[in-house]
């Protein structure tokens, strides 16, 4: 009996060899690209010295992390980073699913053109985006002031001085730039759904909207859960270009635009200290990591199918 068991195990294992063969190139790449450099993380706890190399440099404990917390701005930058990310997750997910469903259900061939168009903003770098935003919002020459507010008889607005507008502007820019990319992901999932499900629903008299809410969205759940979990992991990171370049680093807007990344950048740019930037990255990753582990555990409790790992 014992030998029989090992035999089936062996046989079973043999069955998996092709799978491991297929997985090998990818795993090898991860090993080289991601895991070989990983010990470099110790740099966050060291005072880097080129003479001694990364691994030979002296340990300084948590000193490199100090500057992240020893500031009265710590609360503001953490709050901004997290809140913006939460709003981005919600807004961008809903928008992407909405657009993906529309595109999937469209019969006209023009939908290919639409898809290309909305992908356009994703292809433009944030620096260029910041120029375009400036083109619209500049006080003296901007379109909004000159071509919209003026003809309507309204006073021009100094956009870069008024912080109340910026949470909306940033959410808008983020959605504008990301919708094309994000909707492609959901589009793929929708196209993967077996069409026969819809056909039988239609025969049962389900309306278009019923089909969308009763079939499409429930079947998208695994993708939504996974993407959200992954986004949670990056909740302490912010898109540097979006928060630094788009608001043109304007001081008047800091209370609503300063995030962990922009805060760190302002100091580190001139300090040029590798250990400290490494510490900032490690801190951001670690918090994200803990949050994902936590949420993954919760998800696993509710439905193990949806868990990341």
């Amino acid at each position: 009996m014992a030998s029989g068991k090992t035999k089936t195990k062996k046989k079973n294992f043999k069955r998996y060899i092709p799978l491991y063969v297929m997985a090998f190139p990818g795993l090898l790449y991860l090993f080289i690209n991601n895991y070989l450099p990983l010990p470099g993380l110790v740099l966050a706890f060291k005072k880097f010295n080129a003479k001694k190399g990364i691994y030979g440099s002296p340990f300084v404990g948590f000193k490199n992390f100090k500057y992240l917390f020893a500031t009265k701005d710590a609360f503001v930058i953490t709050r901004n980073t997290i809140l913006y990310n939460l709003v981005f997750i919600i807004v961008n997910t809903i928008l992407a699913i909405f657009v993906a469903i529309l595109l999937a259900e469209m019969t006209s061939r023009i939908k290919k053109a639409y898809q290309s168009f909305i992908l356009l903003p994703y292809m433009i770098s944030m620096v260029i985006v910041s120029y375009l935003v400036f083109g619209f919002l500049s006080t003296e020459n901007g379109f909004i002031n000159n071509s919209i507010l003026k003809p309507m008889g309204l006073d021009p607005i100094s956009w870069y001085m008024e912080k109340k507008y910026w949470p909306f502007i940033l959410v808008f820019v983020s959605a504008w730039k990301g919708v094309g990319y994000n909707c492609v992901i959901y589009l793929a999932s929708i196209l993967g759904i077996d069409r026969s499900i819809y056909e039988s629903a239609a025969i049962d008299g389900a309306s278009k909207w019923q089909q969308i809410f009763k079939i499409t969205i429930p079947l998208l759940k695994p993708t939504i859960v996974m993407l959200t979990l992954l986004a949670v992991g990056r909740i302490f990171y912010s898109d540097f270009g979006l928060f630094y370049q788009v608001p043109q680093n304007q001081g008047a807007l800091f209370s609503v635009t300063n995030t962990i990344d922009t805060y760190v950048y302002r100091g580190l740019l001139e300090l040029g200290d590798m250990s400290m930037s490494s510490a900032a990255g490690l801190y951001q990753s670690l918090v994200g990591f803990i949050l994902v582990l936590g949420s993954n555990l919760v998800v696993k409790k509710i439905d193990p199918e949806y868990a990341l790992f």
Partner: protein
Amino acid sequence: MKKKIASLLLSMTTMAMVLTGCGSSAPSSDQGATATIKDGEVATAASVSDKAAQAIADRKAEAEKSGKYEKVVIAFFDWTGRPAGLDRVNEALSAYTEETLGLDVELMIIDSAAYGDDMKLMLSSGEQVDLFSTCILGYNPSINNGYVLDLEENGMFDDYCGGIKEKIRADYLDACRVGGVLYGTPPIKDYAIETCAVCVGQEYLDAIGYDVSKLPTSDLGYPRATWDDINDIYAQLHEKFPDKYVMAIQDNELTQGSSVDNIAGDYFGTLLDPQNSLKIEDVYESDIFKEWAQRAYEWNQAGYLSQDALTDTTGASAKVKSGSYMAMMACCKPGYKTQISGECGRDMVVFDVGESFMSSSSVSSFPWCVNQNTEDPVATLQVLNALYTDSTIETLMCWGQEGKDFKVNSDGTITYADGVDANNSEYYPNVLWLMPNPYVTYVWQGDPLDLGQQIADFNDNCTCKSKALGFTWDNTDYASEYTALKNAYDEYGPKVVYGFVEPEQGISELVAALKAAGLDDYMAGKQEALDAWAAENGIN
């Protein structure tokens, strides 16, 4: 022809030598000293050059054996990336240095955008870079990260860099010492600046009929003006051209418009009277800053500035070039009028409103350094020495090959070679100001032949030299404060500087924010380091 060039080069080298001789504190007494030194010392002097010659001979012998010369890699940056003709220039360089130094030299030119990151990576990973410019990379960060070699280790500097000591005055060289250690040698350039150079387009002045000649002439040959004169001009300009902005304002009121010493590289704790006092004070509470804030506020109220001044990051000269701005402020030096007129695309009149000033970091802002990882420090130091003294090497490095990249005019200046222009030039790095010694080679057409002399005089005649010349400070222990200060400044500073808030209120907000960010601790740290430095160097 060749002979003529050789003699010209020779005369240029001697000229440069004379020039730096003038620059050194007391050339005549030096010579006197040489005459009276004892026999023993003459012997050491001889053995020093013997050592250098011996090292060259050894390398040549080694190359003969192995069939390959060892190579020294020199890194610096330019504005457009690796020049197309670089391989050719490197070949010519090596052909020459194999003879004179017994080694090959390779220039590695990286564009300005990538230079900082690329160098950091190469210096951290042990790739071969022997000599490098610390511009962009930063002198202090380079020392901090342990990239650089102590040049005086084992007396190397004395043995192999005698030429540099002749070219660079001892006090300038000492200005590059950090904690008493010499990690780099400064490029020979203008260390002083003439603050507050207000540049106005000639055509606009003509339009308001302003008579420049009624102003006295400053030492640099520019019209000398007061702020009242300038305000008067601005008012007239504004009246005459209501559709144009009078001034392209920048956040440079302290760096280029004052003699406040941004000691240790930032304005969070400064020397307000750097010539006389070593007391660190907060510039933002000072009258100097208040005056500037008031001035900018008045300009802004009068409608001289663009309402987008805070957000529009276009450079001031580009704005003037565009034709919708009429004036800007910068700092000047000999030959500046030609330069700024070129940048602005129109004739500019430079009003000299300030004074000449040499800040504590002016000399040590970006010295040339040797990688601590260099395989043959002696060879590298000999190359460094040659960069300051050898006109052939410096010519190749600054201008490329004669006949291919440049040609010599009849007056001794140079210009693009026949058939070459700015668009198709294969070697024109355009970073003369970071080269070790650009005055040992030709001058570009349009510049005076004695530019080197003028710059040396300009440095020597500087009236306001910071007492703390050469002081540097490692602020990594104050990284938290520094980061917080930087954020606080970015939040409250620019709107004061650009005159968008009422000065009193703006300044008090800024000062309060800086205080809250830990300015007092930061300044105390600076003061402590400065006091220690002063005691060590016998300055009081």
